[in-house]
């Protein structure tokens, strides 16, 4: 049977990318610094975010969107720090996409929010394909997970801007090899900034706050090109 070829050349995630671009422009216009968080389940994303929200809420207006397959548990935890928390239940979907973020932002006044955090579904594979319009993406790796996670999931580490090593208070007990972890991160994302923290003890959190404040200052200077 005869066939003919029709050239298409269309990006499959074009709709998502276009919407993410619109979101990014909107965040810039409103002066909101938006940070995405990705990691495997159980790496301490919510504990880390709780500390970030509580720390930043002292002198900034903060908000968070939390993605999970089911339950409102994470949102309930984060509401201890701020009322501006919305849960996105994805059902069976293993990642957030730009449309879910756009919908979840409905009726929020972004111009009254300094920092918005978007906590993705715990998953180191799927979220890497979906741009959410965030200015910075943090990838979290806990000291209890092992040093080789970056090598096993290079795409998510490479698509992120900053790596956060969490649960550093457990590093010794878990025999976590910090130099190897740093080496592996550098291998999949050369030049990536790495922070070591413990949400439990507060260790290392100040450096993250400093980074975020610097990012907010940049977000409020529209003439300076952003990192993404």
């Amino acid at each position, binding site marked *: 049977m005869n*066939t*003919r070829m029709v050239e298409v050349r*269309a990006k499959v*995630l074009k709709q998502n990318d276009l919407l993410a671009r619109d979101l990014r422009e909107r965040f810039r216009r409103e002066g909101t610094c938006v940070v995405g968080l990705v990691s495997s389940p159980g790496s301490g994303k919510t504990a880390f975010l709780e500390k970030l929200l509580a720390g930043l809420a002292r002198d900034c207006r903060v908000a968070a969107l939390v993605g999970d397959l089911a339950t409102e548990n994470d949102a309930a935890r984060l509401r201890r720090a701020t009322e501006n928390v919305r849960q996105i239940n994805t059902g069976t979907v293993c990642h957030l996409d730009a449309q879910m973020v756009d919908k979840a932002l409905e009726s929020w006044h972004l111009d009254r929010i300094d920092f918005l955090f978007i906590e993705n579904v715990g998953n180191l594979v799927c979220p890497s*394909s979906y741009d959410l319009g965030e200015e910075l993406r943090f990838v979290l790796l806990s000291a209890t997970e092992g040093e080789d996670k970056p090598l096993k999931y*290079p795409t998510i580490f490479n698509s992120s801007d900053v790596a956060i090593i969490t649960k550093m208070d457990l590093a010794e007990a878990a025999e976590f090899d910090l130099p190897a972890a740093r080496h592996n991160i550098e*291998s999949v994302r050369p030049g990536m900034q790495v922070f070591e923290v413990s949400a439990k003890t507060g260790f290392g959190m100040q450096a993250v706050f400093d980074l975020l404040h610097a990012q907010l200052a940049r977000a409020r200077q529209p003439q300076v090109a952003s990192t993404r």
Partner: protein
Amino acid sequence: MHELSIAISMIDQITEESENRGGLDVEAVHLKLGAFSGVDKEALLFAYELACEGSLLEGSRLVIETIPLVIYCDRCQKNRVPPSLYELSCPECGSPGQKIVSGREIEVASLEIAA
């Protein structure tokens, strides 16, 4: 496993393309899939078949061309294929490669249409 989401996005996009061109009888879809796209080829082939059921593309084939990861080496000033997906460095001089030239694609290249 987001390959099902990817398959559904593909089908939506091709259906729209078909409508724009007055209806196409698609026999095969040619997809460029980057080795660094985060999408698994086998899982996508499986998901595609499922997602096609009852759609315009039911019975069509998905032909996937894998696009290798290519980085740009600043020192050599050349495009290079890194040693692996988890060592983004130049195979010749060993410098780290921060710029990805290709390997992230998830792109419908062309459609094979019954003539």
